[in-house]
């Protein structure tokens, strides 16, 4: 049997066995390991995100399917646009891991390497997306009809509605994935190496860059510009605590910066191959207005932002229909994700699960009429709340230290479960805001 696809060069390596072992150690069901094996065999390596999710195989399956669909399957946006949008989204949260990953993918689908130099180098059409990216990432409740209108306004650089919907789904997906990456600590422990230029056809999902065995270099430096302070963090005690932590960590970062710079130049000299060195690009080059961050929703409530009532615009009734109409089949895939995460067996009470979900939505200004928010305080310990808030709102490892989830003897898979909840709730929140704005645009 000789199957010839392309001229490929393969590296020698034992990585395969390495991950295989990992999978075997993971004493989950066959299904999980099979999924991983498949993913692994498909692209030669397994990214850490999938590894983490493998403790919930049924979810992993729908996650991978959605991701594959968004990035590689039918859709109005060209492939390199999709990856660039993913880069933009991940850069909002300074998620090095995703930025490098998609940079590599971007080049692989014949994207112009020049664009990777920064947002200014990208075509204006993509730059127009920056605003909605920023808003969705940090304060999605600001998303308004006018944003949609501005993007769709006919002109040379305008977006079509279908393209915009795909872009929005991509943005929301990547933002929330940043939360997961941050929560699971994948960002810091394995920085992908920049050597990814063998011609494997686009595999089952994003991948490749999470190259386990060469990732022994110290994580490259944090943002080179002075990490911005958040003026707007308000006085609620959790946030104050978070802020303390952030400050502390920033100081640490500054201290370490010197060493890092040194090591970075070293590694550059080492790696220094082709133009792919820019994979380890600093995410901040894809970001404008870095000061813009999450603000407490409750604070702003009195002004003019209405609370988003799920009973008036819900995913099941409204969001699904709209998104599925404008970007076919994505509704079913996302629906499956939400359902899957909702049906994951949770060792603690289902009330706790609902409390977590509703708390995250509450952070983003989405309220349920039929929920007593006193429950949140009753069921969620302060540590857990802090953790959730950090993961959901400040998933930026360059600024926020990953506070350990100090929650009564939590198992690894449970932690992943919480991270999944955060990711999905956030995804749904962003989608709801964006889709509502699109609905309003369509009605007007």
């Amino acid at each position: 049997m000789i199957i010839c696809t392309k001229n490929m060069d393969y590296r020698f390596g034992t990585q395969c066995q390495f991950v295989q072992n990992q999978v075997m150690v993971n004493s989950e069901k066959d299904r999980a390991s099979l999924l991983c094996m498949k993913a692994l065999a498909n692209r030669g390596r397994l990214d850490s995100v999938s590894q983490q999710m493998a403790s919930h195989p049924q979810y992993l399956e729908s996650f991978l399917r959605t991701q594959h669909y968004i990035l590689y399957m039918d859709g109005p946006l060209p492939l390199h646009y999709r990856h660039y949008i993913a880069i933009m989204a991940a850069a909002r949260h300074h998620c090095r891991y995703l930025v490098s990953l998609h940079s590599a993918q971007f080049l692989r689908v014949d994207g112009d390497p020049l664009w990777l130099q920064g947002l200014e180098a990208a075509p204006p059409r993509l730059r127009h997306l920056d605003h909605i990216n920023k808003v969705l990432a940090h304060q999605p409740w600001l998303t308004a009809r006018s944003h949609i209108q501005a993007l769709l306004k006919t002109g040379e650089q305008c977006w079509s509605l279908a393209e915009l919907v795909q872009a929005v789904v991509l943005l929301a997906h990547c933002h929330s994935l940043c939360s997961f990456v941050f929560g699971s600590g994948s960002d810091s422990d394995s920085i992908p190496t920049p050597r990814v230029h063998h011609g494997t056809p686009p595999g089952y999902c994003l991948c490749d860059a999470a190259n386990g065995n060469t990732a022994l270099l110290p994580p490259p430096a944090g943002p080179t510009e002075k990490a911005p302070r958040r003026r707007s963090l308000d006085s609620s005690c959790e946030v104050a605590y978070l802020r303390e932590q952030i400050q502390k960590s920033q100081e640490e970062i500054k201290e370490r910066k010197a060493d890092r710079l040194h090591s970075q130049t070293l590694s550059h000299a080492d790696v220094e191959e082709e133009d792919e060195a820019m994979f380890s690009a600093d995410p901040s080059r894809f970001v404008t207005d870095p000061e813009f961050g999450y603000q407490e929703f409750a604070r702003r409530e009195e002004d003019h932002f209405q609370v988003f009532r799920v009973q008036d615009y819900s995913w099941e009734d409204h969001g699904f229909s709209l998104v599925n109409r404008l970007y076919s089949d994505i509704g079913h895939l996302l629906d499956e994700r939400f359902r899957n995460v909702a049906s994951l067996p949770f060792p603690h009470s289902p009330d706790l699960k609902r409390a977590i979900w509703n708390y995250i939505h509450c952070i983003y200004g989405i309220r349920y009429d039929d929920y007593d928010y006193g429950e949140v305080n009753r069921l969620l310990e302060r540590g857990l709340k802090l953790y959730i808030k950090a993961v959901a709102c400040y998933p930026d490892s360059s600024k926020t230290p990953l506070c350990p989830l100090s929650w009564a003897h939590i198992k690894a898979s449970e932690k992943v479960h919480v991270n999944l909840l955060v990711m999905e709730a956030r995804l749904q929140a962003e989608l709801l805001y964006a889709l509502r704005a699109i609905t309003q645009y369509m009605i007007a």
Partner: protein
Amino acid sequence: MRREVTSAANVNNDSTSASPERAHLFIKGQCVIPYEDVNRDRVNVCVTSRTDCHARCNFYLELRLEMEKMTRVSTVNGRTMFCHLDAPANAISVCRDATQVVVAGRNIFKIYGLEEEGFVERLNLRVGRKPSLNFSCADVMWHQMDENLLATAATNGAVVTWNLARSCRNKQEQLFTEHKRTVNKVCFHPTEVNMLLSGSQDGFMKCFDLRKKESVSTFSGQSESVRDVQFSIKDYFTFAASFENGNVQLWDIRRPDRYERMFTAHTGPVFCCDWHPEDSTFHMHKVLHRGWLATGGRDKMVKVWDMSTNRVKEIYCVQTIASVARVKWRPERRYHLATCSMMVDHNIYVWDVRRPFIPFATFEEHKDVTTGIVWRNQHDPYYLLSGSKDSTLYQHMFKDASRPVDRANPEGLCFGLFGDLAFAAKESLMTAPQSVGDVGRKTYPGGDRRYPIFFFKKPDVTEQFAQVSSALSVFESEAGSSVGMDWFINTAKSYLLSGKPFAELCEHNAQVAKKLNRPQESTTWTMLRIMFSEPANPSLSTNHNLNKSGNLPLVNSFSMKEMSAALNERNKENRQDNLHSLETNLNNNDENEETEGSEGQAEYLFGDAELDDDDLYSMEHDNQAAEEPEYLLPQEAFPLRHEIMDHPSAPEPVQEKPESPHVSGSETESTCLTPMESINLISVSQLLFSPHLPPKFFCPIVKEMLCYYAEQGDVQMAVSVLIVLGDRIRKEIDELTQEHWYMSYIDLLQRFELWNVSNEVIKLSTCGAIMCLNQASTTLHINCSNCKRPMSNKGWICDRCHQCASVCAVCHHVVKGLFVWCQGCSHGGHLEHVMEWLKQSKHCPAGCGHLCEYT
């Protein structure tokens, strides 16, 4: 009324004979069901005598009839009208006598009176400075027996009842806070004063007795959220519930432990359901008749289910354009129902379920999604009330509805692949078959045979919907007629696009075209060959040229005349084809005349052609020689001559007027041939001179020619030339146009199932967008190398033996590219790896000890 009475008797019989138990229950409760009793002591209940039961049943039904009579009397006149609400509405409901309507939403809860000239606000039920969430309504229902009684489903999970008879401002009567999640729906029993049913997001349905403080029974659907609950109109104890996961369940109100029946109605949530209100006279013979249930779901479908049989059967299905939020049967019209959608689409449609492809009527007044629809009166099909998120309340008159049928095109026409023509039209238009036949003949001179393939007619169209029967006829094209596409297939199969030198390709294709009786294309190929072939010997040119040009035209004109004369005398059998080609000739000549003087490029061409290509020269001679004895066979002679005399014209056929499809065959046309011809020839011979021109010079002309062909619909020619010329012309034509041509041609080829040709075209194209067509669906099905079973799954792991297929013995990766293996020990791997390995070692990389060899 008479009808009603008979139906009453009927129902009575039904219930007693089929299920005495039910009837007994009903009687014992004296129109009020003793809920608790039902479960606990069913046996006791059944003791009551049978005659008693009869009497009671009659009483009950008479009561109902009285009620209905009352409602009928109070029908009011009205018009299409609307009023602004202060806030978006979530639901509306109308009171029994159709004089008032209640509107409920997150921030609104009001009662409006329906007057003739408009809506009048009667009452605001939303009281208090800061109303609680209990006022935020997801649904509202007005009791159909007690005009003071209302129930609402609150978004916070409360079920609230309101008594309008209360004297204070706050009309709230009872508050049930048993549901944990939003209540989606409340429903009063149609005949029972104190029975209320609710369905909630938490997956439970609860039945309340309004005389009690708590629910009397709880039904657990076990399948996600409840989206709608509806009491059956005919069957006292039954209600239907629809669920978010696509299920519909039927419950007996007396049995909260499990549902009676469940079926999956839709994929995704079932947002609504509605029992058919039809009179039972229609189904007199059916015992235990429950009638039809209509359901609407997120999958954009409305389905009608027949619930009377043992197996629930889908009998109608209407496909709408958006998810269906509400569905309501139209009173007094057995097959009509109204729908509105949850998202995107703001219209209200009334469908005839028997004609599911086009709405019977549409109301297009709302600016945002319609959230509630209700027929104003249970017996009046002409008034529809609707509330919407755009904060308006409308009364629609049926006579003001728009009828999409009136705007729909009643005729359909479509060409088949092989030139067949299908034509569908209303039967009334098709009654005169002769005229239809004429039409066909006129447009398509190929001569058609008409026969109706099939003919359907819906019997008995009793209702007012426009006639739905139409007739379909198919006109078949005769083989070889101008409409047929044989030439296309043959050409596609025989053209050579690559693999030979340019000149040979052109030559071959010219011959192909000639054989298929397509002189113009044939000439074009020859011209292309001449224009783009490398000049062999420029110095020799002039003599030949003069010679030829002096010579040929004369022959031409002569033979032409002869031909046309001969033609006219021919019998009519082949008339069409001949005249066709003749006309082509005429046109070409025409156009020669037009262009010759002004542009002068044609002359160059002619000169060039002759001098550049000895091959052509000799060939022409041959042809001429062959031609002479064949005077009497015009079909063959024509193309040949054509080839010679058309040289000047071929590159610029753009100027050619589209040929008229009508061929008159009159003599006048052929006689006028001669003068034109002579002018043409004179001008040619006068202007002939022959400087040498580079092939590039012709590019604009060729480009125009290609565009011409493409515009004429012969995209095959355009693409073939494009491929054969390759780089010579590619840069002249912009990418998009090329891509467009390629796409059209490939599409055509694939329709004719010429897969090989289409693939060749894709391969030879230079557009990125086209070439990537070949990259799609390139799945290779493989078997596992271990267990030899097919690997159905994605990826490189065998599902059965859980091993990686075809692993490289060196790096242990899956080999996805070239796999090389030793024929001795059958171990192998990546080509490079094995090469490298065997440089260093003689043994098999798998460690089997075999001494592999790599040569």
